[in-house]
């Protein structure tokens, strides 16, 4: 039997059970959402004992060095014990400053952290409500801007998104953890063609990355494909058109599955992306964000089209998965 210790109590783990599932099963509150190693909301810190390296995959080196790990990815070898603590030290208190409706089901949430957050445009943070409910969201803002900006899709029956839409008021106290993720612009090869593609609120990080790249003097072509089911699902259209008018190398390509026209293309985002790719996309870099199936499918298509894996930065917005539930709640 393996076991895990929290605040002076040892909790036994069942064979193959993760630290997160074992603690939740025995009534210990640990923030969590995807249970698949993608959102980083279940971060904990090892205090004594060995943290398995697989539980630290995707974490920044500075966090690894301080024994932080993802509880949902942490399975302990039989007969071993691990003493852990929560990740309170990594959290910054913040205040919601505004909640606006961008489309019928997308909200813009503005936040002001108590201490400045050191992040790169396009990374994501975990938003924690006072009761410990945790969900991750990509940052649409730039580090030089005063407020953090999130784009949150209202999921039917969604706990966090429903609360943000209906109950959260300006002034509300929350906490932030992060930033995390490697979906951000890296200066260097400033002539490299950049492909940014996402559907729905996948635009949030892409909006940040596009503006960041342009401000850092990127000279290569920058294609932003934003897809929605129908025109009502697109947002920031005028803002992005103005940005395109000011930068000749920025190509904004909004698209919908039905009801196109008036500068909005009709078709699948994958088919449209394919029309701009050269035969050999040498030196291209891609940023893919949003809906899980869409991101994974496009990532595979780009790899097959010749992109190197290290040049594809992808953030799939994995939904929350309840303990005992299917691994991909999005099926």
């Amino acid at each position: 039997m393996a076991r895990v210790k929290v605040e002076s109590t040892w909790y036994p783990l069942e064979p193959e059970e993760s630290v997160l599932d074992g603690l939740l099963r025995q009534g210990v509150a640990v923030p969590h959402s995807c249970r698949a190693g993608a959102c980083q909301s279940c971060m904990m810190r090892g205090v004594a004992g060995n943290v398995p390296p697989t539980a630290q995959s995707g974490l920044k080196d500075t966090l690894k060095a301080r024994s932080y790990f993802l509880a949902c990815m942490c399975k302990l070898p039989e007969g071993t014990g691990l003493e852990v603590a929560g990740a309170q030290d990594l959290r910054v208190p913040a205040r919601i400053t505004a909640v606006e409706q961008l489309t019928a089901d997308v909200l813009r949430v503005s936040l002001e952290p108590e201490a400045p957050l050191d992040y790169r445009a396009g990374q994501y943070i975990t938003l924690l409500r006072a009761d410990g409910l945790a969900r991750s969201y990509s940052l649409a803002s730039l580090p030089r801007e005063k407020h953090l900006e999130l784009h949150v899709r209202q999921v039917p029956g969604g706990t966090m998104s429903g609360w943000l839409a209906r109950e959260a008021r300006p002034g509300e106290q929350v906490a932030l953890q992060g930033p995390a993720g490697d979906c951000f612009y890296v200066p260097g090869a400033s002539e490299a063609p950049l492909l940014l593609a996402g559907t729905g609120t996948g635009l949030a990080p892409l909006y940040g990355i596009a503006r960041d790249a342009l401000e850092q003097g990127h000279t290569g072509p920058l294609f932003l494909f934003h897809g929605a089911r129908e025109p009502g699902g697109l947002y920031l259209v005028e803002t992005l058109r103005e940005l395109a008018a000011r930068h000749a190398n920025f190509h904004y390509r909004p698209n919908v599955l039905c009801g196109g026209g008036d500068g909005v293309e009709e078709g699948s985002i994958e088919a449209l992306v394919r029309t701009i790719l050269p035969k050999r996309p040498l030196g291209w870099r891609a940023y893919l964000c949003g809906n899980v199936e869409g991101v994974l499918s496009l990532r595979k298509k780009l790899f097959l089209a010749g992109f190197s894996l290290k040049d594809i930065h992808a953030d799939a917005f994995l939904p929350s998965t309840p303990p005992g539930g299917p691994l991909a709640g999005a099926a």
Partner: protein
Amino acid sequence: MSSVYEQLGGEPAMAAAVELFYRKVLADDRISHYFEDVDMDRQAAKQKAFLTMVCGGPSHYSGKDMREGHRHLVKRGLNDIHFNAVAEHLQGTLEELGVSADLVRQVMAVAEGARADVLNR
């Protein structure tokens, strides 16, 4: 004599070979379904382990590991057709990298030697 792994250029060469090989495998409908991991980086790491092993690089897999590692795939119908397809792409990858015919033959012999274990026979 040094291994094919060393002659190819060691670890960095494997990293380059992985992308070529993985692309061929994913584009082949006969076998792609075995490799559709949600996490492409993790899959790529496994392909690297495969290439390192057959090229005689530092590898610690035993025949027993090969049996166990592929048992769940055999349950899903893994057979000679799939094995031959993987072997074909392995050969194609090495040839594309300019490996001499002699060395390619060596690697293919190592791969062939793993057939019984991989297919759990």
